């Protein structure tokens, strides 16, 4: 994991001092609410429904155990004992006090953490494959590049006031695990025919009220040019992106208006000036940063382990958990474990201080002191010896972190919605809760198999509902909460946007709708077909027909 040197630390300390002074001037009335707003946003501080909301950055999702303990400490000292893990690998606190935030930032800085640019119209947290460095299908480790780009983006003076927010992600494996096509810039790590490393560059993806998938503008960018090329993209966007309308300000609108080809041409033209200049990444710099991501000191272990196999055979609950929550690892004898933050009865992604402390302990005991956040709002321990899995499982289970539901129906992706967010049309947590309670039965969930269910409380799409196999979106109808349901969205390599099945539903109808969608699937599915495969084969019509067939007429009101 990347360790700060004196330069990283000094910059962060200077940022904390800067914000402390800004907060002081704001509280003293020298800095108006309007002038303070973008400053606090770029330090992660929102003003929300009940209280400020504070968003902490976790670059490419990596957390050291001491950082987790610091988050637990912040949750206890400044919040109500828990935090929320988001789909962009950030951590949010919902109840801090405005005036406490500078001190929270100082505490974070003591463990090399920050809230830099986690909001505002700037370059946001950069995400990468959560299984970087351990996945068997990896082309190369994306983390050194993500870190190099993070440094370039941090306090970048030219791009702090873009037309709108800007998000960058790296994919680095055959299987896309970051939903690359929904990012403003998607960087796909590839090798060319000569075996050299570079990026396939996508631009203009984004969800929100106008969901658009990113388009390729460069099939192969040698890695040395990563910064200069991104700078060219950002400069074209900063100069020519729309600023007259908040909802048309994302880069996706500019790319759509110009067409990806013309946009790519303008980027090339701009890039011609910066290419091969000082922003060219040196081999020495790549080596320096890469050294921080060297593999941990793995033991040489046999690929097979009789004792482990025996435990598997003898304990059904353990075997189920291994099947759902444990992933293959490229190192023989090791595995990657996903701890579920989706236990029925807790809001998806919510994690208590005690759980964070426990995850830190588990990371220290079993996974070289590191944990990783997944955009599905779960946490992974990426380097666990298979022989330790049983012990790890027992400890995680005792803390409610071992629900064997990864990839299943109750592994719901969900935004905070109307319970916390002032932009919401509707609440989303009660929907997730109702669905989890109704389908809590694990045998049923395993029978239904893999399915992505995503919930957003409004069209800002923080819950990625467009790319859920089932997507639920909160809509406002005469000040009442209604929910629009779509099916057929997918993330991953073949990312597609779901289709709305028809008029919206009231909150108490949603569980019934999900039931009917699942019944339809069970009736129509071929062997080995997942829900999404069936939807893709038969289309949305049979699902639609079933859902609306016996809907009570008085409920047909909401045509949203």
């Amino acid at each position, binding site marked *: 994991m990347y360790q700060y040197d004196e330069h990283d630390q000094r910059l962060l300390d200077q940022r904390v001092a800067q914000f402390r002074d800004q907060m002081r001037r704001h509280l003293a009335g020298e800095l108006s609410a309007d002038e303070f707003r973008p400053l606090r946003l770029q330090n992660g501080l929102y003003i929300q429904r009940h209280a400020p909301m504070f968003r902490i950055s976790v670059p490419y999702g990596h957390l050291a155990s001491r950082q987790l303990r610091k988050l637990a400490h912040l949750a206890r000292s400044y919040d109500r004992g828990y935090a929320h893990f988001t789909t962009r690998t950030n951590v949010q606190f919902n109840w801090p006090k405005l005036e406490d935030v500078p001190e929270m930032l100082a505490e974070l800085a003591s463990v090399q953490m920050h809230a830099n640019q986690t909001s505002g119209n700037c370059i946001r947290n950069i995400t990468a494959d959560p299984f970087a460095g351990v996945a068997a299908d990896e082309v190369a480790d994306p983390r050194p590049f993500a870190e190099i780009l993070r440094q370039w983006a941090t306090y970048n003076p030219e791009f702090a006031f873009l037309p709108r927010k800007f998000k960058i992600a790296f994919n680095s494996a055959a299987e896309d695990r970051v939903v690359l096509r929904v990012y403003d810039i998607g960087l796909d790590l590839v090798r060319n025919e000569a075996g050299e490393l570079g990026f396939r560059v996508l631009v203009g993806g984004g969800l929100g009220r106008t969901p658009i998938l990113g388009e390729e503008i460069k099939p192969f960018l040698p890695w040395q040019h990563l910064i200069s090329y991104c700078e060219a993209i950002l400069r074209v966007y*900063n100069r020519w992106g729309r*600023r007259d309308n908040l909802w048309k300000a994302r880069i996706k609108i500019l790319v759509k208006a110009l067409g990806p080809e013309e946009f790519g041409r303008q980027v090339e033209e701009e890039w011609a000036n910066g290419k091969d200049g000082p922003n060219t990444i*040196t081999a020495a710099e790549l080596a*320096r940063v890469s050294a921080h991501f060297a593999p941990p000191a793995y033991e040489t272990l046999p690929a097979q382990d009789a004792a482990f196999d025996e435990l598997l055979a003898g304990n059904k609950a353990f075997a189920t958990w291994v099947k759902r929550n444990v992933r293959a690892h490229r190192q023989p004898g090791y595995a990657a474990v996903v701890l579920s933050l989706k236990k029925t009865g807790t809001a998806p992604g919510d994690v208590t201080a005690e759980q964070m402390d426990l995850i830190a302990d588990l990371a220290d005991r079993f996974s070289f002191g590191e944990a990783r956040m997944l955009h599905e709002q779960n946490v992974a321990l990426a380097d666990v010896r298979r022989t330790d899995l049983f012990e790890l499982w027992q400890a995680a289970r005792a803390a409610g972190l071992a629900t064997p539901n990864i990839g299943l129906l109750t592994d719901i992706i969900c935004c905070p919605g109307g319970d916390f967010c002032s932009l919401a049309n509707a609440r989303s947590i009660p929907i997730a809760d109702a669905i989890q309670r109704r389908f809590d039965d694990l045998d049923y969930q395993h029978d239904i198999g893999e399915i992505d269910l995503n919930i957003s409380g409004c069209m800002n799409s923080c819950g990625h509902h467009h790319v859920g196999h089932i997507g639920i979106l909160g809509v406002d109808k005469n000040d009442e909460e209604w929910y629009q349901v779509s099916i057929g969205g997918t993330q991953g390599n073949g990312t597609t946007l779901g289709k709305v099945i028809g008029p919206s539903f009231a909150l108490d109808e949603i569980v019934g709708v999900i039931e009917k969608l699942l019944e339809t699937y069970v009736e129509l599915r071929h062997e080995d077909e997942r829900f999404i495969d069936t939807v893709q084969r038969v289309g949305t019509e049979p699902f639609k027909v079933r859902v609306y067939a016996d809907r009570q007429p008085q409920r047909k009101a909401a045509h949203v």
Partner: protein
Amino acid sequence: MSDKIIKNGRVVADDRLTVSLAEGEVPADIAVPAGPVLVPLAVWQARREELLARARSGEVGVWLAAGEDVAALADDLGLLQIVGLHFPKFTDGRSYSAATLLRTRYGYQGELRAIGQVLRDQFNYMTRCGFDALQPQAERYTDEQLEAAVASIDDFTQPYQRSVKDPLPLFRRVERGTGREVQQ
């Protein structure tokens, strides 16, 4: 009220007028006052010959609105001694790119002045993008506040990126070790 600006990191008095075109005014017709002024690009383009001598002496400078392409001034940058870039709102960041381009692509060496909604909390970013003159709106800051704000120009002493002020990125500017010291 302060009619002071920050020039090269110091608070100095300044009496330069910024001329704007009001609704319905035509570049060819408006009066360009005597003394130091900044005129809009449209006025400069319409009356270049007339203003040329005053421009060469530095009395007349040209300001660009956010979104006006700096390429429009490319041929005049050798003679202009002062160029202004406007911030219609402090959250409108186009002039950061314009400044960067003027200083790097076009090699402009004269005074580059930030005008419009210029706030002290952006002084660091502005100077790093090549502004050497910062002109907050009149009455926005007291003289004391402006003096205090000068320090913020150095909020970040050794930034990560290359910029106009730091022509090299950190990884070429300083020795950052090999990274090997962190390997387990």
